[in-house]
């Protein structure tokens, strides 16, 4: 690919280049302009005049030094494999390719684009958008083979931009709606994140369209962007591999990378369960789904919730049981955004299994909870003890109540098993005082079934960790 006819250099070395206010020849789009856009559209082959570059409105050479202009970029592409789903990916490349041009800076995206050209490049002869168009056409064609035909239009005339603006905005909204509807089976790549491995060496977050990272900060789209910029960085692509079980979210690719990154500690992961082969938890999770055995349901508590939850334990105590990159059935770190996902703990029953959460979490996700259940889930304003919780759930006829019958049946079955000596059923209540911790701590087992090969309770040394 040659850029000999372009008066400035073009290359990846210019990517981090910023054009400072002092050095700027013109600014296109940016915070000073109300309307600006960049848009990629998939067209039919016959609709495109290949490699055509059009400028609607004043060109660079018609602009005054130090001036600001509204701006629009329209990239139209066609090809056998081109479809509207690819528009977002193609459009995002504009950012990269404009930044390849020496003396050009491109920030943001969509209706927010902010472009500057510096004085030096203008003086070198980069004085028309034709050059920019040529660069884009060549880079797009050489880097994306699926593009068979491409035409580029630049808008600097504010009226023409206004005409196109609404269309662009609608297109972005449609795309976002599609993105929200994107489901895990639709994609063949997930993203892994090891940013937390210093806290939890065996933990990786598996980020899918329907399962946000535990910290709540990283979406599948963030993963895609980061992995493209720095594929060897802490965010990387995970090839999904074969689907072992779509409902529980078990994939060979995920199992393989988990085994690799955890050095064999975690070999199989079901993405949508808090109990069975659960996804590990780092130290940064936004919230915890914690089992409340008395009602066979899950409570949820988030980091900002101060004080005790319905089981008498605050977030911080349960975080210790949850964190560290282990698979702990019944203590599951997750993000609030995942609670907006239709796959939220679907193996465990999803919201049918959720029996308590802080009011502030409930408010944030209320619209995303199934209508028939959301008012049956209590918050700290409704109940704060297990006894009250039971009564509340029964009164509201929360779906989890149906499970109680099943459990009673299970218990009968287990009681029979216990005759063989594997289980010790402890009827009623058992209180154990643990020595050496300075008192004040009691462990209560209610109707406990405990099986352990060995139980070690020991005094911890000074400065040592409590086991």
């Amino acid at each position, binding site marked *: 690919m040659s850029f000999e006819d372009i008066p400035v250099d073009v290359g990846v070395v210019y990517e981090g280049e910023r054009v*400072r206010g002092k050095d700027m020849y013109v600014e296109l789009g940016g915070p000073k302009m109300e309307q600006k856009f960049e848009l990629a559209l998939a067209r039919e082959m016959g609709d495109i005049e290949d490699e055509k570059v059009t400028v609607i409105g004043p060109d660079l050479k018609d602009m005054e030094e130090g001036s600001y202009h509204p701006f629009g970029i329209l990239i139209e592409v066609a090809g056998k494999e081109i479809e509207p789903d690819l528009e977002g990916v193609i459009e995002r490349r504009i950012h990269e390719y404009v930044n390849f041009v020496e003396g050009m800076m491109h920030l943001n995206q969509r209706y927010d684009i902010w472009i500057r050209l510096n004085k030096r490049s203008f003086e070198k002869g980069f004085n028309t958008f034709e050059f920019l168009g040529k660069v884009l056409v060549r880079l797009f064609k050489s880097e994306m083979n699926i593009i068979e035909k491409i035409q580029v239009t630049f808008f600097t005339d504010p009226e023409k931009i206004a005409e196109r603006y609404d269309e662009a905005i609608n297109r972005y909204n449609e795309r976002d709606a599609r993105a929200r509807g994107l489901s895990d089976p639709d994609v063949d790549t997930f993203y892994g994140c090891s940013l937390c491995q210093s806290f939890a060496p065996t933990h990786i977050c598996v980020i899918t369209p329907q399962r946000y990272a535990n*910290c709540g900060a*990283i979406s599948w789209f*963030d993963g895609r962007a980061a992995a493209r910029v720095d594929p060897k960085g802490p965010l990387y692509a995970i090839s999904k591999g074969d689907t072992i079980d779509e409902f529980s979210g078990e994939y060979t690719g995920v199992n393989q990378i988990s085994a690799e990154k955890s050095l064999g500690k975690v070999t199989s992961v079901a993405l949508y369960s808090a109990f069975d082969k659960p996804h590990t938890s780092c130290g*940064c999770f*936004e919230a915890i789904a914690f089992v409340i055995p008395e009602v066979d349901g899950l409570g949820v508590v988030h980091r*900002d919730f101060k004080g005790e939850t319905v089981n008498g334990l605050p977030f911080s105590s349960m975080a210790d049981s949850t964190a560290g990159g282990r698979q702990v059935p019944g203590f599951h770190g997750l993000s*609030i955004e995942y609670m907006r996902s239709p796959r939220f703990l679907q193996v465990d029953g999803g919201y049918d299994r959720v029996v308590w959460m802080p009011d502030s979490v409930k408010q*944030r996700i209320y619209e995303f909870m199934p209508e028939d259940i959301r008012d049956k889930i209590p918050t700290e304003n409704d109940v704060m003890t297990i006894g009250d919780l039971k009564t509340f759930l029964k009164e509201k006829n929360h779906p989890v109540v149906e499970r109680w019958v099943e459990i009673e049946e299970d218990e009968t079955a287990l009681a029979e098993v216990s005759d063989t000596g594997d289980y010790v059923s402890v009827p009623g209540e058992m209180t154990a005082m643990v020595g050496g911790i300075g008192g004040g701590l009691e462990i209560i087992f209610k109707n406990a079934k405990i099986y352990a090969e060995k139980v070690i309770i020991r005094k911890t040394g000074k400065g040592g960790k409590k086991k």
Partner: protein
Amino acid sequence: MKERLVISVSGKGGVGKTTTSGLLSRIIAEQTQRSLLLVDADPVMNLPRALGVDVPASVGEIASQMRKKIDDGTLPASAAKQDILEGEIFEALIEGDRFDFLAMGRTEGEGCYCYVNRILTQILDTLTMNYEITLLDMTAGLEHFSRRTDRNVDILIIVIDSSRAAFEAALRIRDLAKEVHIDFKKLVVIGNRIPANLVDAVSQGLEENDLFLAGMIPNDDEVAKLNYMGKPVFDLPDDSPAFQAVEGIAEKLGLLSEVTLLKLLGQ
């Protein structure tokens, strides 16, 4: 991209870091024709007033807003956060004739900032690479710095006054810098408002601890007056004792001679 020079000014709270940074920036801006970025990395944010700039948004505020948008689920579904933050940080940059300015501020609220901080580090590293000289006004602790940028500091300046606490802070900063592997080419101390009868003792104390004294800034009533009135250091007359002293220090650090500056810039 070309080699860049990063200067960091650190020290115990209240010793005069901001005045020192402000005067040093003014001298660099006025006497070298180099592009200069000033970063106020102290969450208290005193530097903007010392330089007479208004800060529309700090990096910390932007990060907090981003965190809030994440929590509320109000970000565009398919836009990547690094792309959004990159533009927002550039918008927070104050572009001036003499220098550009960025205030770090602080993040508010809880929640995990691992990811947001990582993106910020990348964005700030990219940004600072665009300036020949970057001057950072730091807090006493260095963890702030090590978290925010992977780049090395070329000249680490520690400001002290005559208090024991400031002296001990200087030693701690030096050790901390080594611990977090900030690999500086030069580490110097500037003494600020040190009474005449203590100058010898302070100099000797520094020498005993292998700390190089780049100079002393005398007590200056003009500086006190500007501080009181909230006026920028650019209003300080060229012949005032504090200005003269900082000019001497800049010279000693090699910032004012083209030959030594090129060497510092690694060319």
